[in-house]
């Protein structure tokens, strides 16, 4: 196994009286694609959000690319540039063009000049197949295009790992393919990816490992074939049965 890029240990998260993560360990190697599946409310999104500290874990440790994310001395804004995140609802900035969305952090955080940022931004849009939409605002783009711009916004910062939080759940079925296509090409370029999603077909042929979570804990993990064909736990079997009926 390559050296781990993400090393999370003993993660607990409480929301008031709700115990959402109950001691989760997750290690992800360089260039690995890990799929996290599980019923809604199982804590998979919270786990993802703890990795870049959008959510503050109640206890545990998170090390990403050698940086202790929970150390108060860590410059979190600097660290977050290495961790791309793609959201279910895209969260593009509606008052900016696609290029503006992609270049904002390049200019304000990475300290690039406008010309440098625009060159990098256009290259990132090119990678997601939207070079010709640079001047469009999110309102003028389809859901699939918006999500691809959101991916471009992350990859423009050259992250070491990308987190996908249900990237296709808000999309009409016919638009899902274009987003998965971009994710597949990212994978081929060697990007380390952690994906929370129900796209089982994609998981089957692209994931190195599938992690099944339920009630705030990891129930089992393994290669997609093993998890999908012969899960060890009853809960996994039930869940996989349920989603495959759809």
């Amino acid at each position, binding site marked *: 196994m390559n050296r781990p890029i993400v090393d999370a240990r003993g993660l607990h998260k409480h929301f008031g009286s709700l115990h959402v993560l109950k001691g989760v360990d997750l290690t992800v190697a360089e260039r690995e694609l890990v799929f996290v599946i599980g019923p809604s409310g199982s804590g998979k999104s919270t786990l993802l959000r703890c990795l870049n500290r959008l959510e503050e874990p109640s206890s545990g440790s998170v090390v990403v690319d050698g940086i202790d994310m929970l150390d108060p001395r860590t410059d979190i804004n600097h660290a977050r*540039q290495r961790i791309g995140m793609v959201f279910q609802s895209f969260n593009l900035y509606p008052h900016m063009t696609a290029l503006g969305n992609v270049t*904002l952090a390049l200019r304000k955080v990475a300290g690039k000049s406008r010309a440098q940022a625009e060159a990098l931004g256009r290259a990132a849009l090119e990678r997601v197949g939207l070079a010709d939409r640079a001047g469009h605002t999110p309102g003028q783009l389809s859901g699939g295009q918006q999500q691809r711009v959101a991916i471009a916004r992350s990859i423009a910062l050259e992250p070491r790992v990308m987190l996908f939080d249900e990237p296709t759940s808000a999309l009409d079925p016919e638009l899902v393919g274009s987003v998965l296509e971009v994710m597949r090409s990212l994978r081929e370029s060697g990007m380390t990816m952690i994906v929370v999603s129900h796209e089982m077909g994609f998981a089957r042929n692209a994931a190195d490992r599938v992690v099944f979570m339920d009630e705030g804990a990891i129930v089992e993990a393994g290669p997609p074939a093993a998890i999908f064909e012969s899960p060890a736990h009853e809960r996994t079997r039930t869940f996989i049965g349920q989603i495959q009926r759809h």
Partner: protein
Amino acid sequence: MIQSFFNPEIIVASWPIVRAGLLNTVLLSLLVVPLGLVGGLMLALLASVKHPVVRWPLMAWVDFFRAFPPLVLLILLFAGLPFAGLELGGFVCVAIAFFLNTGAYYGEILRAGIDSVPAGQIEAARSTGLSRLQAIAYVVLPQAVRNVLPDLLSNTLEVVKLTSLGSVVAVPELLYQARQAQSLTYNPTPLVVAAIVYFLMLWPVVRLLSRLENRALAGR
């Protein structure tokens, strides 16, 4: 009628006085509107701090200055503070009173605007490494202002009208000058002129506001 309300000679004679007042009203507005906006922005940003140590005093502050009549506030500053040994000119008193009063109003409007921007916007910005302040400045505020533009404009209209309160503390703005001209000429014509000037100055803003409000309704 015409002799006492629309007397042409008096219009001509009093115009330089009234015009000086108009100029001061414009200058006063150019001072108190930005002042109120800055005060409001500070309050709105503080409102995003949910800690009770910030939250309760902030709420008390905003409630107090929204409930307190601005005229009373102004007179208190102008006529009350000298008894505490602090003699501020009418102009400074107007500036302070407007900062406190209109700041509280602008603050509530901007806070509503900031609240109208989905939390996912800040999360997306922060996930790319923007600091909290950068996320607010580049991502949240532009959307917040656009969402409450009609309310901001409507409040600004009120603020410009309220500058006439300056006449009470001898700030030579439009109303004060018109009253001067009235007592010099023993004729209310200058007051009518001032009223028309106010209307001509603010009517385009009212029209713009209506159009914005209609567009906001249509966009819903």
